[in-house]
């Protein structure tokens, strides 16, 4: 987790970086998310989120997506308005395709929201030799944006009740 904490301290200066939460999604929520286009799901009914909020500058989510044959662990930092602030690869395990760790590629996600299409090769540049990793991480970001948008709806409904 050290790399994750380093990333958090860089993205959210002043973050203590140890407030962690696991959010359980309901079956209906998972079905809603699964029906979305271009999202990669490996877990059946559970999404584990590890946000490090501490202050109102945002939160972060750590997740795994499968690349060609290995899991890619990545972190997405999101503002309270659910805009992507930053992306970082925490662990890359594939033999090839490590170019998704390049900052210049990751920077394309900054400012993206759930309403951006984020199509690999169209809205997010492909990297030759890293096509599979590009798709995996791009779909992962889409999944996280969709999940947080859905959670915000649930939480606002619960608060309103």
């Amino acid at each position, binding site marked *: 987790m050290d790399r994750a904490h380093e990333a958090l301290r860089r993205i959210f200066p002043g973050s203590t970086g140890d407030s962690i939460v696991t959010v359980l999604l309901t079956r209906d929520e998972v079905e809603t998310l699964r029906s979305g286009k271009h999202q990669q799901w490996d877990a059946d009914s559970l999404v584990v989120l*590890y946000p490090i909020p501490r202050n109102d500058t945002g939160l972060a989510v750590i997740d795994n997506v499968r690349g060609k044959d290995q899991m890619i662990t990545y972190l997405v930092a999101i503002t309270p308005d659910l805009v992507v602030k930053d992306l970082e690869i925490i*662990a890359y395990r594939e033999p090839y395709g490590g170019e998704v760790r390049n900052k210049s590629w990751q920077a394309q996600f900054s400012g993206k929201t759930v309403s951006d299409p984020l199509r690999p090769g169209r809205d997010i540049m492909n990297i030759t*030799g890293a096509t599979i990793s590009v798709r995996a991480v791009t779909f992962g970001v889409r999944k996280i944006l969709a999940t947080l948008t859905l959670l915000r709806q649930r939480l606002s409904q619960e608060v309103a009740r």
Partner: protein
Amino acid sequence: MVRLHMLTVLIISFSYPLFAQVTPTTTVGGYGELHYNEPDGRTRGQLDFHRFVVYLSHTFASDISLYSEVELEHTRIEAGEDDGGEISIEQAFLDYRLSTSIGVRAGILLTPVGLINLYHEPPTFHGVERPNVDRVIIPSTWSEAGAGVYGMLTDGLQYQAYIIAGLDAAGFSAGSGLRGGRQLGYRSNPANPSLTGRLDYTPVLGLQLGGSFFIGGSAGGNDSLGSATVAMWSGDIRYATRDLSLRAVGAIATIGDAEKINAVYRGAVADRIFGYYVEAAYNILPLLAPDSEQELFVFGRFEKYNTQAATTGFAALQQFNRNDIVLGVTYKPTYNTALKCDYTFLKNNLNAGSATNTKQLNIGLGYFFY
């Protein structure tokens, strides 16, 4: 304010997760390509399921994994048939990731020279057949038993460096260069441990630069060959925007003691071989169907490759100083399937002025999955 409520809820729990724990898993995938080749556009062609590759991968722990590929070429192998198919282990290696900057790799590895040798899933390159530079100058698929290190040095810069079993000079030839000298991990003679490596650098998004080398003896312990040192240097450039992709690859190799190799094996091996190609491809589908996520590339490639660039003791064989022009299309209904068609003009310096230059129509289907 909804956003404030959300943050409040998210701060409720304090526990330390064991993330980045990856459970042991085995994954299967593969790639393949079916080719139709028709020389001269008049002669009867042939259909060939050129390559059928299955890969098997296993994760032992978060930082240890195996990657392997088994390849069947030309659909079947038959006893006693010299020109039948072949079955081979193209890759089989273990990775142990110590950190981002260094991992250890050992097994049957791909020599990291050029582009096609590392990345040859059919939908990832244009043209039915692999570039000839990646056949007779860089002898793809070039895999060998060895071990070494790899990793990311800094943002945008990755490296690979391996010691592998060397080439065998007995297989070098006038027309196919080093190709016949690959041992491919088949009871490889370890007498010539060779060094190979590659740097990959991305200065800006869309531009990828690569430099690679291979150096090692090829005498295999035969003193009458001298050291027969082979040194290959290669550079590659890839540039891509959303619909345009350009690539260029160059490679040069020197073969030491070629005169001795020729004396022993009665061949016409050159002292130096070299080749390059430049390729441009453009996805025209957005012009026809702006919302489509499919791709339709038109492409052209020029290749020059000479396995007789410098010779000692005999005149360079000009039929092996060749150049190709490949013009074609690549239709990709999905990112991992491709229907390809191209027309290839093959020329060599011996018949430069004559009408006997070869032309070939190629049609191919390719896929990969994981």
